[in-house]
């Protein structure tokens, strides 16, 4: 099945095929980016679909062999912010997203700490949230994240750093602890889960 030699020049129609193949492989990542940005599974899939179609329509302007993942992520975040500017009051969105997230993760299997982290993430300023997601979860270098966000590398670094501090403070404070759980519980369960996750990775 793997018939692609990326370095070989291709006629336009084969380019479309190659583009489509790469785009399909990026869908899971676009969904993850959208979901972690918006905190809302339904809105996120709408956003990821829009971004996918925008990328498809703009395929002529994409240079094969460059970083398609970064390119599609940039399309997605631009799409999100233009939609927000158009029709959403961002405070409203954050509130609604947080509420729907609570419902969405009403899953007995879901570790509590993930829920806490989702909510904490939702409270960050959007530019900090996106920077942290790109660098801390999406696997992008600071330089790539800067291109995606169309800002300076130093700006990304400081946003990521502020986001990390803010998340830590929020979870530490247990500001989003529910069910009468004591402050600090969120942090403790995150530590426990992280331990489990890293053990699983190494095993």
């Amino acid at each position: 099945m793997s018939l692609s030699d990326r370095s070989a020049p291709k006629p336009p129609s084969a380019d479309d095929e190659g583009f489509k193949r790469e785009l399909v492989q990026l869908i899971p990542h676009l969904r993850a980016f959208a979901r972690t940005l918006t905190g809302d599974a339904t809105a996120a899939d709408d956003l990821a679909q829009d971004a996918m179609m925008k990328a498809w329509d703009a395929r002529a302007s994409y240079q094969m062999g460059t970083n398609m993942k970064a390119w599609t992520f940039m399309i997605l975040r631009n799409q999100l912010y233009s939609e927000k500017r158009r029709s959403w009051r961002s405070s409203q969105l954050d509130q609604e997203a947080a509420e729907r997230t609570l419902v969405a993760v009403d899953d007995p299997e879901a570790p509590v700490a993930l829920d806490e982290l989702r909510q904490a993430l939702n409270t960050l300023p959007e530019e900090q949230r996106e920077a942290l997601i790109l660098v801390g979860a999406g696997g992008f270098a600071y330089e790539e994240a800067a291109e995606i966000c169309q800002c300076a590398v130093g700006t990304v670094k400081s946003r990521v750093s502020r986001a990390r501090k803010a998340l830590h403070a929020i979870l530490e404070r247990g500001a989003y602890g529910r069910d009468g759980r004591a402050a600090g519980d969120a942090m403790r369960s995150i530590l426990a889960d992280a331990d489990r996750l890293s053990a699983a990775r190494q095993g």
Partner: protein
Amino acid sequence: MIDTPDPRHKPAAAPSSQPGPEEVRLRQQAIGAKLRHLFDEVVNEPVPDEFLEILRRADQRGDKA
């Protein structure tokens, strides 16, 4: 290399006790791992058919045009 903070010395009801720099680093790491997990969970979900369907339709439109 797994050296988690000792859960036994949790602050007695007062969350005010400042964690040391090493402790803070471990906690930041734990949050980082969690965040990656949050993201990867979605990456590992099966892609809804809708996505491929939309793309397929767009592609066909292009072919006929």
